């Protein structure tokens, strides 16, 4: 779950990491009012979107007066940044910057340890630094059982060759950032830039935070959850508890199991089609789940055909077939459906589907045949 910058800063602040004072607003009038309340100039007007490259797109502007706040907020609200429309701007007190650094923690899946990265070259894309000057990034691998202690953090800061003036502030922030990452259940915490002010203080000027949705049960994340940017289809699927990812094509996909669903997308692509979505209905395939999945797919106007790909394991073919038949009785589907049913008691399941077959509801013996049929049907409509 990606947080907006302002939420990331609130998240950081809850772990005592110093961030700039500011307010998140959704209208030009509120932006002006927020700047007046902050009453320290200049302020920065920053687009809140779940993507990078805001600065280049004109989504971050310095304002020295109420008039400039009005002008920038007017331009930024509604701005399209890489397909993300700006609905929220963050107005924060401007900071004097002496130097810009980079700091982050994430999981190194290969090493199965936490990876901390620190660099004296901040403010730019860290990937670019990694490319041009890999030695400029000081990396440490942290065993989750040990955690990060102060002595290690101090050595790490020294290895990154930050300005000695920044040492104390950086060590303090890194220890807090590690706590935010582990205790806060983040997949990623990144501060870029981490700044040294002319006054010697170290401060998080930006915040990029991805939280682990699996840990939601032990946190109060309702507010973050409420602002997730999902398209309508994804929102509807999310509310039904389905694993759904919206895509751009015309073949609606329903499969049981994440691997099989991914594989279904691959096969549809391989035979020249394009999937409208990824949808995993999980191991079982009862009527409720199937009906919910069909509703989500049916509400997507770009879907021209539907491919239901089910492999029965413990859930037997006849249960799956009965689920599909009952779901089809409940939901009226516009697009033609192609079913591939295999695995446990597939023959019994197919026998149940047989009497219901028509031009609108077809069955194919293999994944490949079903994909070809679904793609051909989508092309015809």
């Amino acid at each position, binding site marked *: 779950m990606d947080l907006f910058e302002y939420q990331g800063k609130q998240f950081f602040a809850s772990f005592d990491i110093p961030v700039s004072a500011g307010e998140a607003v959704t209208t030009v009038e509120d932006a002006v009012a927020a700047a007046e309340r902050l009453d320290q100039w200049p302020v920065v007007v920053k687009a809140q979107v779940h993507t990078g490259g805001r600065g280049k797109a004109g989504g971050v502007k310095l304002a020295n007066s109420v008039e400039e706040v009005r002008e920038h907020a007017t331009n930024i609200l509604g701005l399209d940044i890489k397909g993300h429309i700006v609905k929220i701007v963050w107005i924060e007190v401007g900071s004097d910057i002496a130097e810009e650094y980079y700091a982050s923690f994430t*999981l190194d899946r290969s090493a199965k340890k936490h990876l901390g990265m620190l660099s004296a070259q901040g403010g730019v894309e860290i990937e670019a630094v990694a490319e041009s000057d890999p030695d400029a990034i000081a990396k440490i691998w942290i065993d989750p059982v040990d955690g990060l202690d102060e002595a290690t953090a101090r050595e790490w800061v020294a290895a990154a060759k930050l300005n000695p003036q920044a040492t104390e502030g950086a060590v303090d922030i890194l220890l807090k950032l590690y706590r935010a990452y582990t205790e806060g259940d983040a997949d990623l915490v990144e501060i870029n830039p981490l700044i040294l002010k002319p006054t010697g203080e170290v401060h998080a000027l930006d915040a990029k935070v991805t939280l682990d949705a699996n840990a939601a049960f032990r946190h109060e994340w309702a507010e973050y959850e409420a602002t997730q940017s999902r398209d309508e289809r994804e929102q509807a699927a999310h509310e039904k508890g389905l694993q759904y990812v919206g895509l751009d094509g015309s073949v609606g996909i329903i499969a049981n199991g*994440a*691997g099989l669903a*991914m594989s279904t997308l691959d096969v549809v692509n391989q035979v020249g089609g394009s999937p409208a979505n990824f949808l995993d209905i999980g191991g079982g395939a009862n009527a409720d789940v199937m009906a919910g999945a069909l509703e989500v797919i049916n509400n997507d106007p770009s879907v021209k055909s539907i491919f239901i790909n089910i492999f029965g394991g413990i859930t037997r073919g006849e249960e799956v077939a009965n689920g599909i038949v009952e779901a089809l009785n409940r939901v009226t589907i516009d697009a033609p459906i192609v079913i591939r049913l295999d695995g446990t008691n597939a023959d019994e399941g197919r026998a149940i589907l047989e009497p219901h077959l028509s031009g609108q509801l077809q069955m194919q013996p293999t994944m*490949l045949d079903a994909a070809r049929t679904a793609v051909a049907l989508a092309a015809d409509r």
Partner: protein
Amino acid sequence: MSIFVDENTKVVYQGLTGSQGRYYGLLNRDYGTQVVAGTNPKKAGEEVDGIPIFASVADAVSATGATASCIFIPAPGVKAAVMEAAEGGVEFIVCITEGVPAQDEAWFFNKLQRDFPGVQLLGPNCPGIISPGKCNIGITAGHIAKEPVPGEKNVGIVSRSGTLTYQALYELKLQDVGVTTCVGIGGDPVPGTSFIDCLERFEADPETSAVMMIGEIGGSAEEEAAEFIKARMSKPVVAYIAGQTAPAGKKMGHAGAIVSGGKGTAKAKMEALTDAGVRVGAHPTEAGSLMVEVIRSL
């Protein structure tokens, strides 16, 4: 032979008194698995369909000689359940539960490595493991797996996906190819058992003649497996990688299945495997037929 589990494996089910634990625990017993105990601190002394319930894994181990545990505990309790199993004295822990926080996974993976190096964890978020004809722990439908045939060429399977594993088992069965062990390592970012852990054992297992490996996008486990195969494996490997057309930055169901920063693409994995001499199928059915072709040519 088989890897990790066989007819002598005695299993304690943590969460046997819950609905999922009971359902699969009894199915596993019906298959022939030695389901010797369940645990629930509040129900010690009770039974689930004749299976004794103990307060802890340690109690179950001392009373029944259990050697493995299978966890069907909801995600918030998994960290404690894994440690309870390790401290209780089992050698093999299968964690079926999905939705375990990554921070917990990273923690107990390292904790086990350090303090319980003899304990092997499988999962979390995995379908489990089956050595056909001997032992089935988890949620795999036992009847879709063909038992290994003595004197014939048999296959070992290792997979990150559940349903694709079933499909692989099923296709091999239709082609009359026996399976020594099928390991579902799961779709999470820090799996307790890796491809390499399994490949190493399959290579050493005299009854396994070839290996089928099913990977997916995200991470670099398949690339690492490719290096291992190139350097250390004499037995042929056939692979399939799911998610060849998955867009970057979107999690495809599994917590670990995401292409980020240009890393973890199916293309890179398929190239690494091909480079290591692995035959890679474009889709699961093709991988199945490649496997049959390979096994028939041995």
